[in-house]
């Protein structure tokens, strides 16, 4: 199984678009660090360090739109792309059951996505540190959310919860990639889903505010992709407990994985 996962990781990483995504993330980190420096200079705020802000890097828009969008580009065609290029045939005539191949692709995609988020965090930390100072992880998060827990603990919890969110995002994308036959269409669908979901969150919040009976919509899988926001009180579903949100994410993730494996298990490979 480790060999299979290694195969999948190397296939994702060897593609040119992975390098493009890494370059984009690096540039984003540098630009946002320069922007942070300018804001500090203008507002003459209390100095906030890289250690104090790095945890919030995986909350809000990053968790809801940026990361899912980048994952869609990197791994959206992990199944469909192999159908389009014809390599799936040679993959499926090895003495490895289909569910193992599905799972190795899923875990490979998950590990690459985690690595991308961690790289983004490290890059931001380095760029912010160089720009506004590295600071100490033992200092209180303080800053914009005025939280007394240490910045290090906030960062660890935020990234831990973001891993759960990534697992959910990847499970949806894997299902789409399993069902769709064209690699380009699969990437397009995953990226569109990321955009549509990020737009739907504020709309759903508004609907629930004016009609509390519609609260069931909050059980939608993408509503909980910002679960890491719990650590700095930026999670949009403020009436939800962390456990409730994680259980909802887990149920959806299991359903998506089960559907993906079941479809792949019986899929005819014609291309």
């Amino acid at each position: 199984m480790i060999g299979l996962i290694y195969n999948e990781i190397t296939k994702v990483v060897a593609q040119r678009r992975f390098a493009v995504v890494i370059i984009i993330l690096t540039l984003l980190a540098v630009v946002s660090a320069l922007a942070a420096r300018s804001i500090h200079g203008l507002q003459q705020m209390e100095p906030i360090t890289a250690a104090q802000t790095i945890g919030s890097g995986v909350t809000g828009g990053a968790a809801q739109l940026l990361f899912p969008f980048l994952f869609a580009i990197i791994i959206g065609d992990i199944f469909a792309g192999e159908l389009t290029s014809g390599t799936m045939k040679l993959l499926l005539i090895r003495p490895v059951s289909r569910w193992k191949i599905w799972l190795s692709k899923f875990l490979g995609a998950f590990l690459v996505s985690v690595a991308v988020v961690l790289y983004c965090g490290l890059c931001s930390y380095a760029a912010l540190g160089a720009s506004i100072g590295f600071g100490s992880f033992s200092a209180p998060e303080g800053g914009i959310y005025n939280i007394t827990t240490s910045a290090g603990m906030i960062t660890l919890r935020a990234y831990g919860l973001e891993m759960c969110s990534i697992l959910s995002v990847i499970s949806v994308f894997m299902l789409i990639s399993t069902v769709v036959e064209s690699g380009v269409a699969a990437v397009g669908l995953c990226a569109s889903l990321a955009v549509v979901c990020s737009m739907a969150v504020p709309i759903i919040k508004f609907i629930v505010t004016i009609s509390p009976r519609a609260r069931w919509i909050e059980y939608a899988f993408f509503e909980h992709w910002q679960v890491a926001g719990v650590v700095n009180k930026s999670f949009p579903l403020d009436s939800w407990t962390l456990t409730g949100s994680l259980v909802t994410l887990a149920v959806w993730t299991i359903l998506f994985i089960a559907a993906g494996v079941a479809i792949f298990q019986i899929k005819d490979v014609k291309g």
Partner: protein
Amino acid sequence: MTDEPAAINAVNISKSYGSRKAVADVSFQVRPGEVFGLIGPNGAGKTTAIRMIVGLIRPTSGSIALFGHDIQHDFERAISPVGAIVENPEMYKYFSGWRNLKHYARMRPGITNDQINKAVALVGLTDRINEKITRYSLGMRQRLGIAQAILHNPKLLILDEPTNGLDPQGIQELRQMIRHLADTEGMAVLLSSHLLHDVQAVCDSIAVINFGRTVAEGSMSSFTQGKAIYRLVVSERNRAISLSQSNKWTIVKDDKTEDAFTAASEQEISGLNEILVKAGIKVSRIEGVNRSLEDAFLELTNSNNQGGIVE
């Protein structure tokens, strides 16, 4: 007789897409050490049959066992001794030839770098194996496809159109390699090809598929011997062909440029000559033709095509 199970035992396999039957009740057996040819016109159902044999698609009905293991219910054990190319051997373009082979080697336990090197040497790619696939010609990709199929010394090799893109020397080498693997290693080979000359040169037995059905199956000699074949040069080709067909002669080839046609039958040629002459058709030449697999193939597929003629 040996108790060893057949390398391939396909029993009444069918595959339908909606109302269209791509393969209908096809049955054949490939024995260990045998080179078996699967031939048929484009769209006859050869590749669909091969996809079912390697488990890429599920038969609508029928069963397939590889060395006694059902491909659907015992997939891993059934596919374990199999190496295959299905249509074009597409590889990962962003990898080198070597990384492609390493990728497939990781999917089977115990394949060493030495084994990979041996397979690479066998297909003649040693000098170019570290280059990216994008720099490979179609023939080189085909060779790499064969290398990935033989990495683990399979007991059954399935080659779907393996000569696509190969130059004449490559085709010759492939033929020799197939015979060598069958004769010295006891490997069973299922070979699907359009190049009937190559099939005739290497196969022990063949099955002819047309319109998704098995039209004929048997040893190579049963195809290349049998009905007599004659080439006739005549004055009114079209009328002569009609008369021949109405007298139960099968038209193997219609040679419009030379006003000639080739026909096969178990009847005496003198009878056909008499009919043509009585109808006022001048027969300037009749010559006996050595029957090749191509003749047998055209005869079988034409007679199954409502008497159609291959031009």
